[in-house]
């Protein structure tokens, strides 16, 4: 059971995020400003959200969850604006940015161990070693 969850929530998203991080670069190569990029990104998110009603018809609205989600969108776009500006104006290669921002692994893992007490559910040492391997491996691959 757990492996299916890891596949759905970890491995599959890795491929999708990989494609989406490449589309960032393709978009800037074809000339796009930050404003239009973020608006179009947001509209696409709205569209996917609406389509997903067909898959998950149950409607549960919680103010706290919705405002946190709104904040997630704002933060995501603020950071994405930085990525687009770095690609557009500072000509940083995408291959340098992707491993850098994927170091968020370390931030998220440490926060999760602490905030959600996930140290009770996982082997902490293995998780940290594995995460480090992925981060270091990412940096190596991008420098190849």
């Amino acid at each position, binding site marked *: *059971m757990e492996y299916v969850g890891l596949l759905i929530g*970890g*491995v599959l998203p890795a491929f999708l995020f990989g494609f989406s991080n490449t589309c960032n670069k*393709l978009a800037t190569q074809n000339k796009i400003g930050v404003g239009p990029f973020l608006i179009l990104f947001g509209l696409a998110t709205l569209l996917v959200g609406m389509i997903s009603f067909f898959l998950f018809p149950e409607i549960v609205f919680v103010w706290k969850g919705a405002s*946190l989600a709104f904040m997630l969108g704002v933060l995501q776009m603020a950071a994405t604006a930085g990525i687009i500006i770095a690609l557009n104006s500072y000509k940083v290669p995408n291959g340098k940015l992707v491993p850098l921002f994927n170091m968020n692994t370390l931030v998220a893992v440490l926060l999760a161990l602490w905030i959600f007490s996930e140290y009770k559910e996982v082997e902490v040492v293995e998780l940290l070693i594995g995460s480090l391997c992925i981060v270091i491996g990412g940096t190596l691959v991008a420098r190849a």
Partner: protein
Amino acid sequence: MTVSSQKFGMLIGGIVPALVFGINGIINKLVVQTGLSLPLYFIAIGLGCVATGVVSYFLCADRRYTKTSALYACSTGCLWTVALMLSAYAIDVYKIPIGKLVPLYNMNTLVAVFLALWLFKEYKNVRLVPLISGSALIIIGGIIVTKA
């Protein structure tokens, strides 16, 4: 373009996003824990994204777009949203700790780099040793995390 300005680019396009995306991994789980249903979750994210987009539209002078770039921007949004939705689903239904999902989905560096080798013809001047050793490390790391 001087070296220091490229460093600034790496700061705003790499380090800051690393912190923000890390925090967003946590927010993802917090939202799932509130019990908000997935479609509403993603519509709320979309509204946040559009709102930020509109603000940045007025703040940034660069308002160019082409048909092709617009299409790629939409693709980024769709792919990212579906990926995040899958991770939220795994947290909700399979009760997978977010600390395990984040390292796994951040193996996407590997995917992005291999796509770049192919799409941007970067394979012509790639160094094989870091490429293979780095890929191996990512995959070994992924296996260790899965078993953690």
